[in-house]
């Protein structure tokens, strides 16, 4: 599910190569919504921490009152107060 065309617009406007978009893309909207493209499944979910797999590793999102606004095969949106995003 492609909610925003933001990434493709960005790629087009800044003339970015396709090689830059091989793994995952994260957009943080005002620290209240995190939009992720290219996840490979959930590892852990709670109201404070959501961990999910990416192609070569995992991403840990920390915050408050977190929940998955959308969870589909390739994309997910996390809503809540986002404090920290760590890539391992």
């Amino acid at each position, binding site marked *: *599910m492609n909610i925003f065309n933001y990434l493709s617009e960005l790629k087009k406007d800044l003339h970015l190569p396709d090689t830059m978009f091989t793994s995952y893309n994260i957009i943080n909207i005002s620290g209240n919504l995190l939009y992720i493209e290219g996840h490979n*499944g959930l590892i852990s979910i709670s109201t404070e921490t959501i961990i999910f797999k990416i192609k070569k590793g995992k991403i840990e999102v920390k915050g408050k009152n977190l*929940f998955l606004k959308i969870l589909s095969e390739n994309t997910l949106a996390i809503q809540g107060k986002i404090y920290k995003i760590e890539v391992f």
Partner: protein
Amino acid sequence: MKFQSLIEIKIEGLNQEKFFNKLNNLGVEIFDFKRLSYSISIFKILTKDIKIVKKNLDSNNFKIIYKKKIGLNKFINKILSSVGIVLGLLIFSAFLFISNNFILRIDIIGNQNISSNTILEFLNNNKIGCFSSKNSINNENLEKILLANFNEISMVSVIEKGSTLIINIKEKIETANSDSLDNNKYKNIVAEYNGRIKNIELISGTLNVKPGSLFKKGDVLVFAYYYDSLNNKKCIEASAKINAEIWIETQYTHYENQIEKYYTGNEITIKNISLCGVNLFNQEKDIIYKNYETTQTQTKLKNVLLPITISTITYKEIKTKKITKMFQDYKEDILKKCQENTLQKLLKNDIILSENYNIINQTNDIINIQYVITVERVL
């Protein structure tokens, strides 16, 4: 998402991440996934995915705490479960159907001389009225029909506004100078009595008489037209101040020999008793009178269960006698009666000029009396 059909599910079970990853791989989209505790979660799915989710929940030993429909699904469900709303919708739909497809009111505007009822009657005869289908009414055709059938209409427009048919009429303006020769509208001044013109002052129209002219009842005194400078005949209201001598007459016929009938006082009464039109009892008596009159009365018996009717026919004997009334003996009474009858025909402002009478012997015993009062009257 607001108008999508969604189902909210609350589940209880372990290893939920594995379960949701499995659903993702099966192409199931999950919305508003909240983990309330380690083993309890709430999430929403599209209605179309419920079978897949349910199957996987069962196979992974998850317990469904509750399941409820939300979004469009919930809205439809709520409406269908409410009889009042459904009934209201049906009535509204029926009303909408009627108001969109039928004429419920006909408004006629701009008519002054033609009454609205006349037009409505005409429309009814042409099968146009309340509850007529809008499709059956062709506005242009209706305008043409109205113009063709009403001479008084100069312009007409027919429009449909909602469920109302509006007929806007502009009537023809006819003035005294109109070229129209409509004789029905302008009427001549016609004499109602015999008489003689004393003087006449024409206001409008054409004179047919002059001072001193004699006229009979039915003669035209003033025509309702005039000729203009180009000798064109033009209709106009006939009007004049006419002062005339009028002869007001009363005719009376006196018969010197008259046949008068009288009752002798003898009578025979025959009674019949019937039940529901079937005669139960017939009284039989011979009618011995040569001339008689009959009167019949019917009485329905009250306080009796059966509808019994008693009819009574009374035969009254009549005899005739010849009476001779000589005219000379009754002359004064007859003339007085004739005078009274003639005076009753006079108007308030009439001035009586003279009174006279003629006696004409038609045959030996029939005498005609003509009583004439000459009055001066302003017509």
